[in-house]
């Protein structure tokens, strides 16, 4: 692969997806139909604030869908990957595979 092609792929990498925590969130969401905040908090081992910021970023870019509801008196937030999110993740994955050395 030429240097130009490599640079092209590098430039087309979605920086929102590329961040490790967000990448892990998206990967979990691609494997499940729906997960909640506590599940992500447990598996990712980040702080609540940090996770909330990452989720906000993913939500504002339209990669994930947030569902807020009340279960009795307790608020419950769950997340789903959107079609765009799935597409972007797939694209990111393909780019990474293309960049991987033979």
């Amino acid at each position, binding site marked *: 692969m030429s240097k130009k092609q490599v640079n092209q792929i590098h430039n087309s990498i979605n920086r929102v997806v*590329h*961040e*490790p*925590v967000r*990448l*892990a969130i998206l*990967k*979990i969401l*691609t*494997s*499940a*139909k*729906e*997960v*909640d*905040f*506590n*599940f*992500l*908090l*447990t*598996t*990712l*081992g980040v702080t609540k604030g*940090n996770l*909330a*910021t*990452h989720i*906000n*970023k993913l939500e504002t870019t339209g990669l994930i869908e947030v569902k807020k509801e009340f*279960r*009795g008196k307790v608020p419950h937030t*769950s997340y789903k990957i959107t079609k765009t999110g799935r597409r972007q993740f797939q694209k990111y*994955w393909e780019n*990474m*595979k293309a*960049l*991987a*050395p033979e």
Partner: protein
Amino acid sequence: MNREQNNKVQNQNAEKLKEISKWTQRYAENRTLPFVINMMISLLFGFAVGIPSYFGGRAYRSGNVLQLWICILSLMIVFPALIFYSVPKWGGKYIEKLIRFLYRKEGQVILAIPKKTKSQRRAGWIAGLLLGVCVVISIILIVFCKIPIKYMQPVSALCVIPLIIAVGIWRPPSVKPAGFLVWLWPILYAIHAILVVAGVPIQFERPWIFFNILIPIAGYGILCGLLGHIYSRYALKKLKGLTHLEGEAANGD
């Protein structure tokens, strides 16, 4: 970070990402506490119906009116409780709350129900058909062949095993995942039936003869559920290790 280091990190991440899917699914499938709780409640109801029924019958035959009324009153409490537990809108709501409480720290993960392949659908139909045939055979055995009561469990195995297999293959949305270890359940039940037929003394004697079906069904179910739960702890530990990807910014920017 130079390009070589960067490539190494990306490769490590790619490997981890591949594994995340696998362990998320394994963890979600093996969250078997709802299954264990439901089996335990079913077992309790089995005792709550079986014991007063037996002693009530004995009291009726011996003319012990007080004992008979105590048994009738117990059943009058147990039956509405059983109906309440069986209706998802009533008892199911409380079970759901209990399960949420137990998993409150781990949170919730719902798996998408995958579309069944042609061979899976065919296997489901075969298991369903097998269940029908086995039910007919067991009825014939009970009604016409006068099978001794000690062979109740092996005869019940004819229905229970295909039923578990059919439910496992079809897995309707109302059935919560019970993990791959649930397949151990019909195997253990079948082994139990074979041992009974072989004459191994693993049966309850009178007056507890009605436990011969209840305890193996619920007992092996609970055992498999607990094994599934232990496996889910392992899957979660694995998943926690995999989600720590290497890379540049790890903040919310």
